[in-house]
């Protein structure tokens, strides 16, 4: 656990720089001037209002899911199945939105959000209950449940929930009452990033200032001692898991309502998995996860534009993203190993 939680902040910018340098070498090997390529990347991420909007739009689902996963890490559990919770949230939001297509926008959006949150939480609840009452590894169950969710969504989109007007596996387009309001006229930016920021700040406050947050942290650091001190460890683990599922579901709603305008099979390019890395890079803190999501969002948005303008494959960006996290984890692990363990010395 300490490898995940106990990173010191200074190591992160250094890791990012090293990863960018290695990425630059790869770019140079492919015959392109790395400075030119990174220039194109920066331009693609921040250069115009729409590019900045793209960065924030990409960051939104990563931030929401990442905050939830960070909470799980802090409690000592691993939600690796946010991908499935995200897809079911999107599915539930789209179905609800189409059912309420004539209601006022505020009611429709609220109902969609609630449906998405419940769907994500319910999916996470299966893994949480299996873990707490039967001892089943949540890492395995959440991954398995993601497959089930993926194929369930695929079935719904090809069957009962498919828009009869097209042969494509997708729902009917949402009416305007089911679409998230825009935030920045002239761009496609929607209010999702504000919601993500509110969630991150609320989670930060909860961990720092609330009894429940303190109990989550204590449980994550030593569940046996926490239980012995009377903390409701089972309840804490279940609620943290449900929260994480709910946030993934909420991200699904935002993606359906703010970006696609309908539920599609390929709603996620792997947000649920990338968000794990976002949580790690954010040192399992909510605000850290939010910042890491912005970084990843900028790399994704900029990488796409780098590919089109200078011809460097966007996968270089993916390499930089994951290298950063690997470097941070390796550095922290090395430091943890080098620290003398007093626990071991004191035992006879």
């Amino acid at each position, binding site marked *: 656990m*300490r490898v995940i939680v*106990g990173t010191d902040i200074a190591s992160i910018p250094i890791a990012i720089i090293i990863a960018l340098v290695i990425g630059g070498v790869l770019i140079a090997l492919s015959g392109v001037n790395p400075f030119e390529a990174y220039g194109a990347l920066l331009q693609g991420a921040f250069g115009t209002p729409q590019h900045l909007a793209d960065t924030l739009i990409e960051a939104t689902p990563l931030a929401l899911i990442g905050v939830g996963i960070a909470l799980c890490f802090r409690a000592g559990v691993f939600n690796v199945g946010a991908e499935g919770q995200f897809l079911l949230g999107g599915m539930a939001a789209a179905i609800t939105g189409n059912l309420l297509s004539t209601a006022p926008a505020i009611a429709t959006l609220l109902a969609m959000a609630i449906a998405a949150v419940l769907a994500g939480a319910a999916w996470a609840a299966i893994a949480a209950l299996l873990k707490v009452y039967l001892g089943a590894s949540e890492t395995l169950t959440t991954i398995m449940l993601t497959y089930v969710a993926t194929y369930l969504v695929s079935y719904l989109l090809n069957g009962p929930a498919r828009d009869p007007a097209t042969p494509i596996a997708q729902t009917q387009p949402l009416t305007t009452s089911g679409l998230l309001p825009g935030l920045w006229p002239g761009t496609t930016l929607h209010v999702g990033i504000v919601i993500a920021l509110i969630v991150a700040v609320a989670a930060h406050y909860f961990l720092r*200032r*609330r*009894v*429940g*947050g*303190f*109990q989550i*942290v*204590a449980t994550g*650091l*030593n569940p*046996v*001692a*926490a*239980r*012995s*001190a*009377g*903390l*409701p460890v089972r309840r804490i683990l279940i609620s943290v898991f449900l929260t994480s599922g709910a946030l993934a579901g909420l991200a699904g709603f935002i993606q359906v309502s703010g970006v696609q305008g309908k539920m599609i099979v390929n709603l996620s390019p792997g947000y649920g998995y990338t968000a794990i890395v976002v949580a790690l890079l954010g040192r399992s803190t909510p605000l850290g996860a939010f910042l890491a999501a912005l970084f990843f969002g900028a790399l994704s948005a900029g990488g796409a534009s780098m590919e089109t303008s200078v011809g460097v494959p966007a996968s270089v960006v993916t390499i930089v993203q994951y290298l950063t996290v690997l470097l941070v984890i390796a550095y922290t692990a090395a430091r943890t190993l080098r620290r003398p363990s*007093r*626990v071991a*010395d*004191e035992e*006879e």
Partner: protein
Amino acid sequence: MAISPLEPARAAPGSTTGPILQMDKSTVRFGEVVANDRVSFDLAPGEIHALLGENGAGKTTLMRVLAGLIQPDEGQVFVRGEARSFESVADSVAAGIGMVHQHFMLVPTLTVAENVSLGLRSAGRLFPNTARVGRELRALADKHGLSLDPSARVSDLSIGQQQRVEIVKALYRGATILILDEPTAVLTPGETDSLLAMLRSLTEQGTSVVFISHKLREIRAVADRVTVLRHGQTVGTWALDSVADAELTSAMIGRDAAPTVSSRLAPTTSVAPVPRLAVERVGARDRRGHAVLDSVSLSVAPGEILGIAGVDGNGQTELAEILSGVRRPSAGEVRLDGANITAATVAERIGHGLAHVPEDRQRTGLILDLSIAENLAMETVGTAMFSRRGSLNRAAVRAHAEDIISRFDIRCSGPDQRVRDLSGGNQQKVLIARAVSRAPSALVVSQPTRGVDLGAVENIHRQILDLAAQGCAVILISTELDEILALSDRIAVLYSGTIISTYDRATVDLGTLGMNMTGQSV
């Protein structure tokens, strides 16, 4: 002392008749703690030599030196008269020493032959020839008259059979000296008898055995000589046919170490009609379904300290867990002020005034990566003391810690210091203070001074005595007999999951107590 231990005989180098293994003034220090202090003993060829001692007497350290896991700071080890130093486990194995640990080092999903082949170069590096190893194992087992199926999967074997695998594994690797660390702790009585018979037949074939135990009956049944360790030092070595049980027990528990009798007043002799805290016929089972506590009944009155004496692993952990609410008993009831609290959670019990000091401060007691202040507030963080409607009052948590730190003399840099960075004694003070500062009506305290320095011991004992003087009912579970004698009004001895005797502090006989702790009722 009326007892006269034998002088260990020094072997001449190269001698064939001298001891096969000899430890000479081996000293091991962990920081300031001396775990082994000039420990000496010798093992004759074909002998079973028992090591007897309480928990923390240094038996495990001695064994780890012989296994090559730690190097002694001073002193020497002689094998067949030659001085040897074991830098690693491989050195120890090469010298013919085979270790049988209390917890088996076997991979359950592999067969016996595969387990023996693991890490064994002679079996072949990448693809061990397990068929050949299996044949050789069978031949070896037959030679020693042991039944063993090399193709059996370890997970299908009983605990006794798995132990036999460990022994044969050591023999197969060329061990002529077997060291067994509390080998009977995990066995049923039937399995124990067959192990003892197996050891005797091995020594007839020339193997020598070091048998670590604190069960006198088994030592008596199997060993030729016994060396007693106490507080990291060798008390002496005796031939078993010339020493009485009582002498060994008093050597083990140290009769000369007179306990400091508490200066406080004896509790009121008029026992309250309802005991403050009681268990009635409670039972507990381990994962294998074996009874670890069987029909234990105890009660403690307000102002009274009940000491639970006994050697580790006789049900103390389970009893403490049942009292604190971490474990549900398989039978029986727990009562607080007459009310049945068997089904109450840990938090509910804390709310009703029960405090609990777990036995292992670093694993079950404290959260090492949190601060002193956070650890002190842990149990009551949801109450009005530290929070309002779920909102944590960090200033109150800190102020509370400042107060506790000065009242309980916790040496630290401040309330925000991480508990991990405190010394063992100060960690323990944090844990004790958390329970005691609540002014509980009942306290269950396990191993309150294990591994802490003398100054902290005194401080902690004072806290427990003061609390009882204020009317708290205390159950003190400790493997340190001195501690039990210094603090308790009454003493119950827990052995093998049952209370085999209960004494009044004023009338207790130390010798009898020691015999009870090793399972003999007088």
